[in-house]
């Protein structure tokens, strides 16, 4: 899922967890993951999901 347009929001939400060093979590893990997932689909930043689908073989995020 392309999150390029909201990546600053995601960062801010993580940074709100000051006691957990949200900035460090972002820098060491999720910034890299977002970029990597983005590269997989050709966008600057993305989040990836596994859809547990019992019905068919499509794996779309509803309405996004």
């Amino acid at each position, binding site marked *: 899922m392309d999150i390029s347009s909201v990546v600053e929001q995601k960062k801010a939400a993580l940074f709100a967890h000051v006691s957990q060093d949200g900035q460090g979590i972002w820098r060491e893990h999720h910034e890299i993951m977002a970029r990597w997932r983005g590269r997989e689909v050709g966008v600057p930043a993305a989040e990836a*999901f596994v859809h547990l689908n019992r019905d068919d073989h499509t794996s779309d995020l509803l309405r996004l």
Partner: protein
Amino acid sequence: MNGEEPHGPTDGGGHGPKMMSRFRGTFCTEASRIKGTLRQLSRKNAVTPRLPTIVEELLSTKSSPPPTARLTGRSCACNAPATERAYRSAKVEWTKRISVTPVGQLCKLVIDESGARQPLVWNESAMNKRDLTRRGFVTQSLATVGPAIVAANSLPLVSAHADVAARMTVVCVGGHPDDPESGCGGTLARYAALGHAVTVGYLTRGERGISGKSLDDAARIRSAECEAACKIVGAKPVFFGQIDGATEVTHAHVDAMRRLLATEHPDVLFTHWPVDTHMDHQVASMLTIRAWMEGGPPTSRLYFYEVNSGSQTEGFLPNT
């Protein structure tokens, strides 16, 4: 390397052994760095399976530097013209090998907006350019295939602002404060921005997450951080009341989760990928799965997200 092919002897002044040496150095460093990263990611199953294979194949076809790189050093210092000829020859040979297009196997069809499948077309002439670098090849491949993947997996953006009936409920369950934000904070923000109702359920309040603080104090601090984070994302926080580091899967807890789902009636449900090194993450995932399965015919779509892939989430192969 900055994505550029090292300049060859024909590119202007300052050529010869020094440039060859630099070429060899950058080639070896870059190749080994990429291979190491890919090995690590492959081990963790953290990437789409075909991608590392493609790049590994690409690297293995030229696992040793081109012949000119081996000519660097004293021998070529006294034989620069020979080095230049060898460099040209090797460069041509190298780029010929790079021009193979295994990426075509990655996605042969594009599904257009009407659902019809169209053959994937890429710029073959660009892929066969003689000066195409390895990094250029990978970048170009991803640029070509990426949009196809997005096209195949995306649905039209639907805003709920203008149509109340289109308003969906999105629920995300995480083990600790900061897990939902880490795993799908961006996606939740997108849903919220479109006017959909987003609820974030925290299994615990992260009671053991601040050293030197009592469980109650830590819970108070981290709950406030959750409130702040949810406000930024546009979500409503809910706490399940389990204790960080002592979470359990019991019928009572499954019932509590089921009650949440029955109340929210989510159209989209997110939780941790269940294969995780942190037990609280596994518990959050199991409770969600059980509640989702026991809640009658599931009308909501269940998605798993990853957190700290490689150190926590493992074996995660995304399909969305």
